[in-house]
């Protein structure tokens, strides 16, 4: 259900979980948070910070004006960098973090291994067929699966 949000767009924001275990039997698409918050390339870093703070999300997708194609991702650590340096910059300029991605068809166990190996709490989930971002998987989504054991 697309809706315009203050400072960003929530695309298809629903949260579906299949409450089974163990991790190897569960696909990422069954435990991720569907939808990704977005902003434009020329939005200020303060605007992106407002989106993160208001919606409590750790990553915002930067899209261009040409059909809204995703071009980069601003992470919470990019915002922390801007805060620490006091730099005024655009969303595109701030997007320094190379996003870690996982296919929506990958197992939750594979996603957990990726997070563990790279020391990150969030992965961008790509549609297994089209390859575009369709959601975010966080360590708390994996924790919810472990809690169901």
């Amino acid at each position, binding site marked *: 259900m697309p809706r315009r949000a*203050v*400072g960003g767009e929530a695309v298809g924001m629903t949260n579906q979980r299949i409450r089974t275990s163990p*991790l190897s039997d569960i696909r990422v698409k069954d435990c991720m948070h569907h939808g990704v918050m977005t902003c434009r390339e020329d939005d200020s*870093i*303060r*605007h*992106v*910070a*407002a989106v*993160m*703070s*208001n919606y*409590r999300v*750790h990553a915002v997708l930067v899209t261009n004006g040409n059909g809204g194609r995703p071009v980069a991702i601003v992470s*919470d*650590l990019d*915002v*922390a*960098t*801007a*805060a*620490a340096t*006091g730099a005024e910059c655009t969303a595109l300029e701030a997007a320094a973090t190379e996003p870690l991605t996982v296919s929506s068809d990958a197992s939750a*166990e594979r996603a*957990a*291994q990726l*997070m*563990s190996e790279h*020391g990150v*709490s969030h992965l961008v989930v790509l549609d297994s067929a089209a390859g575009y971002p369709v959601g975010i998987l966080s*360590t*708390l989504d*994996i*924790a*919810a699966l*472990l*809690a169901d*054991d």
Partner: protein
Amino acid sequence: MSQTATQPVHGSYLMPSLRHATVADAMHPGIVACPPDAGLTDVARLMASHHVHCVAVMAISHDDEAEHFVWGLISDLALLRAGIHLGPDSSARALALEPIISVEPTMALRHAGELMLRHGVSHLVVVDPETQRPTGVLSTLDIAGVLAWGEA
């Protein structure tokens, strides 16, 4: 078994600018905690239900002389690693082995942000300067909130 400790540090109602803000202005007071003998499933349930990325493990240590308050911290990544490689002991006591990166409420918020970047972490534990007990958590989203202050 879950408990959220309340403590006397509160952020101001009028948010200062990032330049002048301290950790106390942005942090979330209170920390979700569990006893040392809690299991992996219990810790996972605490994180998932409270939407927190770290859980404190608190206990009273007894020796011949006196009782001492001791605590450790379980991060979301430590929980994941334990979930992937289930060892013989996956109790909270065994999981809370990572070094704790802590800050005090009076630290400048910008310095706390630099600390997060240096260690590549999104959350810091805020400790009471007198007792050194955990009193809250500061996340990157809290810093984002101060940076965005005044933004619609």
